[in-house]
Structure formats: structure tokens, C-alpha cells
């Protein structure tokens, strides 16, 4: 069907992954940090589907379904913790919520 090499698909996944990693480092608002983790997970899922399509196996798609499940569970617990963070610290800035010394 497609005549593009599979490396292009993986390079796209790599580009999206590094954009997510870049955003994880720089942003300080907790929402954007959680969003960058979602970008990275989506990019890893894209890599799996490309690899699965290359080999003609359903495993890539199955792994993507499980990644989707994990992202949903993590986001729900993460957002509940964010709500508690806002109630206790009255801000969403992670540097302000860093009271224990590293």
C-alpha cells in the first residue's frame, strides 16, 4: 500500500518524542508537564504501530492499546493529585511546591 521506508515513520516518532522531552524540561506549570508526558507516550505508541506494520504483526497495535490504557489511568490519578496540589499550595507552579530539599 505505502511505498515509503519505515524509517520515516520512526523518525517522525522520534521528532515528536524529542519535542515532548524538550517541553518536559522547560515548562513549570504542572498541566504542561503532564501534557508533555502524554506527547511522549503518544510518540512511543506511534513507533510501536510503525514497527508492527513493518513486520505485519498485530503486536504493535496490541501494545498501543495497552499504552492507551496506561495513559488513561495515569492521567486520571495525575489530575486528582493536581487538584489536591492546587488546594494545598494555591499555585500550579512546581518550583513553588518544592519544599523538601533535594
Amino acid at each position, binding site marked *: 500500500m505505502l511505498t515509503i521506508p*519505515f524509517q520515516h515513520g*520512526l523518525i517522525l*516518532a522520534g521528532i515528536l*518524542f524529542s519535542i*515532548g*522531552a524538550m517541553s*518536559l524540561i522547560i515548562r513549570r506549570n*504542572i498541566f504542561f*508537564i*503532564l501534557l508533555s*508526558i502524554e506527547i*511522549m*507516550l503518544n*510518540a*512511543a*505508541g506511534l*513507533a*510501536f504501530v*510503525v*514497527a*508492527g506494520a*513493518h*513486520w505485519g*504483526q498485530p*503486536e*504493535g497495535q*496490541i*501494545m498501543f492499546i*495497552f*499504552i492507551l490504557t*496506561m495513559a488513561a*489511568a*495515569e492521567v486520571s*490519578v*495525575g489530575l486528582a*493529585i*493536581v487538584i*489536591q*496540589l492546587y488546594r*494545598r*499550595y494555591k499555585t500550579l507552579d*512546581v518550583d513553588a*511546591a*518544592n*519544599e*523538601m530539599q*533535594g
Partner: protein
Amino acid sequence: MDLPDFLKILPLVVLAGTTVVLMLVIAFWRNYKVTFFITLIGLIVAFITLPFGVSNKSLQITSILVINGSTVFYLGLLIAGCLIAVLLSYEYIEKFEGNREEYYILLLLATLGSSILVASDHFVSFFLGLEILSVSLYGLIAYPHNLRQRIEAAIKYLILAGATSAILLFGMALIYTVLGTMEFSRIAISGAQPGNQNVMVLAGWGLLTVGIGFKLALVPFQYWTPDVYQGAPAPVTGFIASVSKGGMFALMLRYFSRVDIFANSSLLALFAAIAVASMLYGNIVALMQHNVKRILAYSSIAHLGYLLVAFLASGSLGPQAVAFYLVAYFITTLSAFGVITLISTPEHEIEELKDYESLVWRHPILATIFTISLLSLAGIPPSVGLIGKIFIAAAGVQSSLWVLLGSLIVGSVIGVFYYLRIVITMFRPPEEQVESVISLPSIYTTGGVVLSLLTFLIISLGIYPLPIMQIIARMISTLP
């Protein structure tokens, strides 16, 4: 999947079934003691159904799990660790003013996730077990969310666990692209063919190491450890330090021994560097801390470094040394955090060193228990920690890992300083009549009985470790 296969994974099924039963019981009748007893019964039944899985050969269950002797051993260790954590946290959670019963559900789910990791033979079960463990831990760390430090610890753990899961997944995708399979045994076979030894597989393994190193709190992935250990409630910290690390370490043993790490010298060098860095970093930074939980956090980084020395030993003693040291580490860690649990409440964690001042004059039994577990962590006779370290050193000598053994010795010597500092603080004579902020419980509570049993095990296994060593030798072959 027919009946014999189902019987072999019965412990996992019992753990999941207990969770469902607990949810139903809580829905109709919310009673703390009933929840506690159902959890205990479920864990004991799971432990009893373990011998179904013992056989002479490995058995694949639907290609994503494998049950053999070492799986059964580590499953038993994890279930016993969860049982001890449940018993220790009974009084602690009873004092929490919110919903108390969901704690046991989350604890059982985390143990189930760790058990899946131990039995896994495929990237899918690796990932799912890891995520069940992580998501349950997010809930457990923030469980009594009345204190701000719990939310902060949960946020730090969440962000780092999510990011390293994504990195781990990308590494798995790279390996899958080249080799076309996700099962550990097929990865070993197709990875050995000369056409597939390319740099993409190596990059995949490197990214996989990031995910594994985060869970095990190895240098340079260890920044979350002190803050999460300090911010989480004390019984949950004991659980993270033992069950979650034990599960991941067992998986790492299986994966890297199947794909034969010893044939790849760059991976060996990477792990050796991580081991040396962990041992030295953990011990040196712990010298500067004055918070007991942070001291124990940095010491756990060092202990995982010691375990890596045994992991890198390629002879027959290597896996057995790992198993024995994990047993010793579980008993000791749960005992140390159990002492902190017993004297803390969810509103007020007793974690500063000055709160332990002259503890032996106020509560001699608890101080003695803490002293014995600290001596075992330091590796001073007659404790089981010393036997564990001797075992690791023997495995290291058998494989001639001289640099690693040197840092093991240096690290242990430095470690004695800060462990003894806690002991000396406890034994200092009281200067004036100090207002005691600690609730000093009687030894006849559930937690007290468990702690006494653990202390007895530390000393008796230190003097006579032969029964455990025989069990390990019977169950753990050189190829897990």
C-alpha cells in the same frame, strides 16, 4: 489455557480476586477490621497456592508469562513482604481520619503488579506489571493527603515515573523494530544472529535501562528517592523500598540472563559503572543527612548497588547471592521502616534524628529492634545482612570483579558511620526531662509482634542461614 496452566498462576488470580472481594465488602459494609482480615486471608491463601507452580522445567503461560522455580521463589518473597507491610500498617492507617479501607486495595494491587513483573516473559507483561505497580503507588504515596509533603512526593514520583515509562516504551519499540518479536526468549535467539547485532538494538537496551534504573533507584536515576521516601507515609515507604524494587530486580535478572548480558561488553561496563556510582554516591551523601527517612533512602541506593555486584557475577553463585541478599534486604528494610511506622501517626511523621534522642531510655524494646535492623543494614555480625554481603563478595570473587568488590568494601565502611550515628543518638543518656512528642506503643500490638518476629529472623538467619540457602539452591537455577 486449560486447568493445569490456570492452577500455576493461581497466586496472581487469588490476589486479584481478593481485591474484587474487598471492593464488594466495602460497598455493603465499611468496617476497618473486616477489611484487614479479608486482606490477610487473601494473602495467606495466595501464599498457600504457590507450590502448584513448582516443577522441574519452565512453563510458558500463553507466551507472556513464565512460571518456574525462581518465579515461585520471588512470588513467595513478594507476597510475604506485602503481608508484613499490611500487618505493620494496621495501627498506622487506623488513625487516619478519612476512608481507610481503600489503602488495602491499593496495596494488594501494587503487589499484583510487582508479581506480574516477576513472572513476565514478554514486553507486554513487563509494561503492564510495571504500570499497575506505578499507578497503585501514586495512590499510596498520596494516601493520607492531609500533609503537604505527601502531595509533593506524589507529584515528583508521578512526573518522573511517567517520563521514564515513555522512554522505556521507546526503547522497547526500537528493539521490536529490529528483531520483530517481543518475547524474551525469541529476542535472545534472534538477537544472537549476526545480522541483527546493530546499534539500534543497543540503543533500545540503553533506553530500557533508563526505565529499569528509575524503578530501582540507581545512579543517575535516583533523584526521586529521598523526597519520595521522606514525603510518603512510613509503611508505604517500606513497601516501595522492598516489594517494588524486588519485583523489578527479579525481572531484570530474567531479561538480562535470557538475552545473555555477559556476551555484550558495553552493557556490562554500563552496569558496572552504575553499580560503583550507586554504592559510592548513596553512602557518601547519607553522611550529611539528619532525617532518618532520607538516611534510609540513600542507604537503599547503596544497597541496590551491592545487589548489582551479585547480578554482574556470571558464575553459579550470582543468582543465588542475589536471591539471598534480597531476602535479607526485605526483612531488614521492613523492620527499619516498621519501627518508624509504629511511633508515627498520619498527621505527624517522626523522621528527624533529634526525635530519636534517648529512645532507649523511653522505650527499650523498640530501640533495640531498630538497633538490630540498622546493624544488619551495616553488615555487622551476627545479623543476616553480614551473611548476605559475604555471599555477594563470594560471587564477586568467583567472577574476579575486583573494582566492584573494592567499592563494595569502601561503601560498607562508610555506611557504618551513619548507621552507628543513629544508634548512638538513641543510646544517649537523657539530659533533661524531654517532652515526648512520640506515641510510644506497647509491644503487644500487631505491629509490635511482627517487628519482634522480624528481629528474631534477622538474628537467627545471621547465625544459621542454611535453611534459606537450601531453599534458594533448590529453586533457583543459573538461568531464571
